[in-house]
C-alpha cells in the first residue's frame, strides 16, 4: 500500500485518496494527492489493481493461443494488440503477409483508432461536465463495433488478426457497410467540434491545463497524441511503417501548446486522418485474394484442403496440439496505438511456447507524466489531466 508522509503543524497538508473506485480515473487507478487547500503539491499514482499476469500466462501458451490474451490488455484497442503481437511473432518467424491481409489490418486498426478516440472523447467530455457528447460518441462507436462483429463475430475481443494473416475472409457486404460508416463519420466529427471546440467552459477547463514541455515528455518516454500535442511529429506509422502504411497518404496532426486542449485537438484531427486512411484502404482491398500467407506448419490450412490433402490435415493437427517452434531469437515490433507507441517483445528459445512476451504499453509509460502535469495545479485539473493522458487500466496493469 502506497502511503505518504505529511508535514504536521502550521504547514499541515492534507492527503486525499483519489480512486481506485473513482469514475474519472477510468478504471481502477489510485492517485494519492497531497493537497494544500485545493492545490496539488504531490501526486503519486498507485497501480496494479487490474494486474492479471498476462505476460506470465503467455509463457504457458503456444504462440497462437496467446493472441486471445492480447485482446484483454487494452480493451479499447484489441485489434491493435493482436496486430503488434502478430507482427512480433511474424518478425521472429520471418513471415511475409499477403498485401490484401495487410490492407484489411490497416483498415481495421484505423477503425479501432476512431472507436478508441470516441470513447476517450465521450468519457472525457463527461468528466468535464458535457454529458450529451458521451451519448453521441457511443452511438458512433456502436457502428464501428458492428463492423467488427461482422468481420470477427465479436464486438470487442476480436482475435481477428492471426499469425501470418487473418482469421477469416472478410464477410459479404463489408465494403458497403464500411463506406456507409465513412460517409456518416466526418459530419459527426464536425458536430462534436461544434459542441466543444469553441465552447467557453470546455476551453476554460482545458486550456493551459497540464502543460509539460516536449523535452520533459521525451525524457519521460511519452509517445502518442500527448507528445504530438507538444509539437513532436513522431508517429510510428510514418517513422517505422508496418503493414504497408507507407502506401497510405495521411498527415500527422501536431500542436505546440502541450496542454489538455491541444491533446483534445490532436485526437479529433487524428480521427479525421483515420477516416482518410480507411477510405484509401477500402479502395485498395480487392474482392478476391489470400488473407493468409503460405507457411505450412505455422498457418492453419484452408478447410477445403484439409478434406482433400493428408499433409494439410497433419499440419492442422500439429498446429493446434503442439504449436510451432520459431527459431531461437528475439523480435521487437511496434505499432502506433491510439495511445502511443505500443511495442511487443517476443523471445523464443526454440520451443513451441514463448520464452518471454513483453508488452511496452503506452498507457503505462505515459502515466508516468501525470505527477509532472498535475503538481502545482488545482485538484479539479487532475481529472482533466488523467483524462487527456487517455489511459486504459487493463493495459497499464496487464
Amino acid at each position, binding site marked *: 500500500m502506497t502511503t505518504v508522509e505529511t508535514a504536521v503543524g502550521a504547514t499541515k497538508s492534507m492527503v486525499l485518496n483519489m480512486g481506485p473506485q473513482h469514475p474519472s480515473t477510468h478504471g481502477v487507478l489510485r492517485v494519492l494527492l497531497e493537497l494544500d487547500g485545493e492545490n496539488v503539491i504531490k501526486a503519486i499514482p498507485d497501480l496494479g489493481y487490474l494486474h492479471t499476469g498476462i505476460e506470465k500466462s503467455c509463457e504457458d501458451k503456444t504462440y497462437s493461443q496467446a493472441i486471445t490474451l492480447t485482446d484483454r490488455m487494452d480493451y479499447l484497442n484489441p485489434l491493435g494488440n493482436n496486430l503488434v503481437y502478430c507482427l512480433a511473432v511474424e518478425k521472429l518467424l520471418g513471415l511475409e503477409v499477403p498485401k490484401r491481409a495487410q490492407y484489411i489490418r490497416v483498415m481495421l486498426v484505423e477503425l479501432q483508432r476512431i472507436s478508441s478516440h470516441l470513447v476517450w472523447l465521450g468519457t472525457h467530455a463527461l468528466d468535464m461536465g458535457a454529458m450529451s457528447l458521451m451519448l453521441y460518441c457511443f452511438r458512433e462507436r456502436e457502428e464501428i463495433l458492428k463492423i467488427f462483429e461482422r468481420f470477427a463475430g465479436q464486438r470487442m475481443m476480436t482475435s481477428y488478426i492471426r499469425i501470418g494473416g487473418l482469421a477469416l475472409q472478410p464477410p459479404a457486404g463489408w465494403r458497403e457497410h464500411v463506406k456507409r460508416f465513412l460517409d456518416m463519420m466526418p459530419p459527426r466529427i464536425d458536430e462534436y467540434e461544434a459542441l466543444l471546440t469553441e465552447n467557453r467552459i470546455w476551453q476554460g477547463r482545458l486550456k493551459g491545463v497540464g502543460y509539460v514541455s516536449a523535452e520533459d515528455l521525451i525524457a519521460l518516454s511519452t509517445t502518442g497524441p500527448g507528445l504530438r500535442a507538444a509539437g513532436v511529429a513522431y508517429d510510428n506509422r510514418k517513422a517505422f511503417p508496418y503493414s504497408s502504411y507507407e502506401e497510405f497518404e495521411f498527415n500527422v496532426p501536431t500542436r505546440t501548446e502541450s496542454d489538455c486542449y491541444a491533446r483534445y485537438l490532436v485526437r479529433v484531427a487524428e480521427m479525421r486522418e483515420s477516416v482518410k486512411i480507411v477510405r484509401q484502404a477500402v479502395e485498395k482491398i480487392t474482392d478476391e485474394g489470400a488473407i493468409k500467407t503460405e507457411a505450412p506448419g505455422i498457418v492453419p490450412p484452408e478447410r477445403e484442403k484439409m478434406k482433400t490433402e493428408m499433409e494439410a490435415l497433419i499440419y492442422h493437427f500439429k498446429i493446434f496440439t503442439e504449436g510451432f517452434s520459431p527459431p531461437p531469437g528475439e523480435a521487437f515490433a511496434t505499432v502506433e496505438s491510439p495511445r502511443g507507441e505500443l511495442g511487443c*517483445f517476443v523471445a523464443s528459445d526454440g520451443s513451441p511456447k514463448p520464452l518471454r512476451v513483453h508488452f511496452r504499453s503506452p498507457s503505462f509509460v505515459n502515466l508516468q507524466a501525470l505527477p509532472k502535469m498535475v503538481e502545482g495545479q488545482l485538484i479539479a485539473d487532475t481529472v482533466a489531466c488523467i483524462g487527456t493522458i487517455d489511459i486504459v487500466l487493463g493495459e497499464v496493469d496487464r
Partner: protein
Amino acid sequence: MTQLANASASTVVEKLRGWNPQAVSQVVEYRGEITIVVPKELLRATAQQCRDNPALNFNLLSDATCVDRFPVEPRFELNYQLLSIPRRERVRLRTSVSIQRPVIDSLVPVWTGANWLEREIFDLFGIRFEGHPDLRRILLPDDFEGAPLRRDFPVEGKR
C-alpha cells in the same frame, strides 16, 4: 530495409567503439534488429553516450525488459529498446546479470522514463537497480512474496 539497418548498425557500433572499445562486447543482428551487448559495469555510461552523442541521439527510452534464461547463468538478460526520434532509428542494448548478485545500475539518471520500467522489472523479476530514486513494487501488492516472472516461479502461483 535490411540494407539500411546494416549501414546504420555499423555507425552506431563504430561510434560506441570509437568512444570506448570495451563498451561493445558483442553485436547481434537478427531480423533487421541490432542488439549491442554491453558489459554490466559500462551500461549507464554507454546509455549516456547513446543519448548525448549528437551522432547517436537516442533521446527516448522506449522499453526496458528482462528475459530469464533459467537455468543458464548469468540468467537475467536486460533489454533496453532505445529510440532516436530525430534520426528515426532503434537499437537494443543488452546486458546480463546473475542470480548471485541481481543488481544493475539504474538508467533513471539518463532517461527519467526508466523509472517505472525499472520498477516493473524489480517487481516481477526481483532485480535491484542501483541509483533508482524510488524502487518499490509497482504492479503487485507490497506483501507479495517472490518474483513471478522468473522462470522457476510456477504459472499457477505458489500456494
